[in-house]
């Protein structure tokens, strides 16, 4: 068993860390205050990411990516996680689900996405279908050899900048002993397709500037060529690829927690009360100890889950554990970081109140903590017949 990083991995970490510090941090306040990423800032981050060869670094070399391992990509995203989601979105990492593209879909979607010419987003959640994915109402029916889609998706991150969206849509229903079960198909939908609109969603307390959008389908007609994977094969596509978003959440939580921790540690050493640094009081010093212990645990849990993928081992349960623990750890760490700072922690002179707000969504998106616990317990109990 080996726990250290090799030289390349160390250099990847240090490059991405410097990039985030120099290219992302300076814009964060503005983005949080206005809820918008200025166009020129977005373009510059994207251009520099492409120049550095980091754009779509999660994709294999044969399709033009950098071919990073799962572990290496988790390290990249961990460092990105230190910075604003709204801004690091432009450090492009297309959905790896695009690897399911076949034939000419590769030319239209996969390759341009990897080159940074076309941007993607992923749409699953609906107002009436959150954790219960199969409860989706958005549906497609056959008409004259095409598919006609109707319905609404919401909470679609990144759709404001997307040229096309990967959308999960119900395409039928099977009767099973446990009741009816939706069949789901994955579609590639171009912005501008008649009957398809993208509009602003809700104002969120977390990750301002990283907008959640609403997608509406009103008799939106799609040919078979827009089906990603097999018809009715949406669940297979999800299961094959969507683990990645949960590792992303876990590892970004670790990065952000470390940044919050750096502030807390520094403050505990610098701030004097009652004639000594406050870190010397156990009430503060022990909080610092608990914070770093939890951060390290979440870091190792996440990297170990990613490394299992690299070794081709089943990792569903491990990834769920990492996502669950890291997101809950981040909530505790950002809360404690504010406590160490006292009243100043809540002022927007420090980014801590932002980290604290941003942390809240991590326990919700890409599978709530409850869903992760469900996955973990089911994985353990099912083989025992329970």
């Amino acid at each position: 068993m080996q726990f250290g990083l090799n030289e390349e991995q160390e250099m990847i970490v240090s490059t991405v860390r410097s990039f985030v510090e120099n290219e992302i941090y300076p814009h964060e306040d503005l983005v949080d205050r206005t809820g918008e990423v200025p166009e020129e800032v977005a373009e510059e981050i994207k251009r520099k990411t492409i120049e550095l060869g980091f754009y779509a670094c999660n994709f294999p070399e044969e399709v033009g990516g950098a071919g990073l391992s799962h572990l290496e990509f988790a390290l990249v995203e961990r460092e990105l996680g230190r910075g604003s989601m709204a801004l690091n979105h432009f450090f492009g990492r297309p959905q790896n689900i695009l690897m399911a593209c076949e034939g000419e879909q590769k030319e239209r979607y996969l390759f341009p996405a990897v080159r940074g010419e076309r941007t993607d987003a992923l749409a699953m959640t609906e107002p009436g279908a959150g954790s219960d994915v199969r409860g989706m109402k958005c549906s497609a029916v056959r008409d004259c050899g095409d598919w006609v889609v109707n319905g609404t998706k919401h909470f679609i991150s990144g759709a404001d900048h997307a040229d096309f969206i990967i959308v999960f849509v119900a395409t039928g229903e099977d009767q099973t002993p446990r009741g009816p079960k939706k069949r789901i198909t994955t579609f590639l939908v171009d912005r501008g397709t008649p009957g398809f609109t993208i509009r602003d969603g809700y104002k969120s307390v977390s990750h301002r500037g990283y907008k959640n959008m609403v997608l509406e389908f009103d008799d939106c007609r799609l040919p078979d060529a827009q089906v990603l994977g097999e018809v009715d094969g949406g669940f297979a596509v999800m299961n094959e690829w969507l683990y990645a978003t949960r590792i992303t959440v876990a590892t970004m939580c670790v990065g952000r927690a470390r940044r919050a921790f750096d502030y807390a540690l520094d403050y505990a050493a610098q701030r004097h009360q009652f004639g000594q640094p406050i870190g010397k009081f156990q009430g503060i010093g022990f909080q610092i100890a608990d914070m770093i212990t939890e951060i390290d645990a979440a870091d190792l849990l996440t990297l170990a889950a990613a490394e299992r993928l690299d070794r081709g081992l089943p990792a569903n349960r491990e990834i769920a554990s990492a996502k669950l623990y890291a997101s809950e750890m981040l909530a505790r760490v950002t809360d404690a970081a504010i406590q160490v700072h006292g009243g100043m922690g809540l002022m927007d002179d420090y980014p801590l109140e932002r980290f604290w707000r941003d942390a809240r969504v991590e326990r919700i998106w890409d599978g709530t903590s409850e869903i992760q616990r469900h996955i973990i317990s089911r994985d353990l109990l099912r083989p025992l017949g329970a």
Partner: protein
Amino acid sequence: MKVLVPVKRVIDYNVKVRVKADGSGVDLANVKMSMNPFDEIAVEEAIRLREAGKADEVVAVSIGVKQAQETLRTALAMGADRAILVVAADDVHTDIEPLAVAKILKAIVEEEAPGIVLCGKQAIDNDMNATGQMLSALLGWSQAAFASDLDIDGDHAVVTREVDGGLQTIKVTLPTIVTVDLRLNEPRYASLPNIMKAKKKPMDEKTPADYGVDVTPRLEIISTAEPEARAAGVIVGSVDELVEKLKEVGAV
């Protein structure tokens, strides 16, 4: 033309340094180490010379502990073509003195025959600001220290130097030693393809004995102390009060 760039592994500029309890030096155990920032500027300039077609090979060299290979890998990941590691110490706390470094570099220069040696003007750990100048003296080459601009013009280098009171532009004959200052350029990030290529680039490992140089220290460190803590400031309400306070402490 070949460019030789000596790089030093030093305590990272972000790290808050701590003096060892016995005062023998700065504590380097379990501390983040990086390439000396001035050397990073030198590496960047060397790569730019190559990109501009004015140099055809960039060789990075580091003299110190074995771990300096990480520093050399960083130089390779930035774009240097190959590296030479001279392992001259086992203990991270052993600092090889400028004269010994300059002597080893002289031997390497004689082997490699570069047209220019680009050094950082000083290392941020001990601020000696001596190696480049000593190397110039040992080789009998011209030197241009504290460069904020560099251009190669045929068999000359035109160097703008940051001197007290302004900028001075000089023309030196190649081969030459240039030590670089902070404003010469902004070093690039290592790109991902270059990070991946760095491992495959050649790195020779040598010892001072290979160059017949004795690195035994000539200097003795008597003591090391942290700078005195700065006294807390006061916030004044008006210019008059400010002047009053300055008079009180005898500053005006």
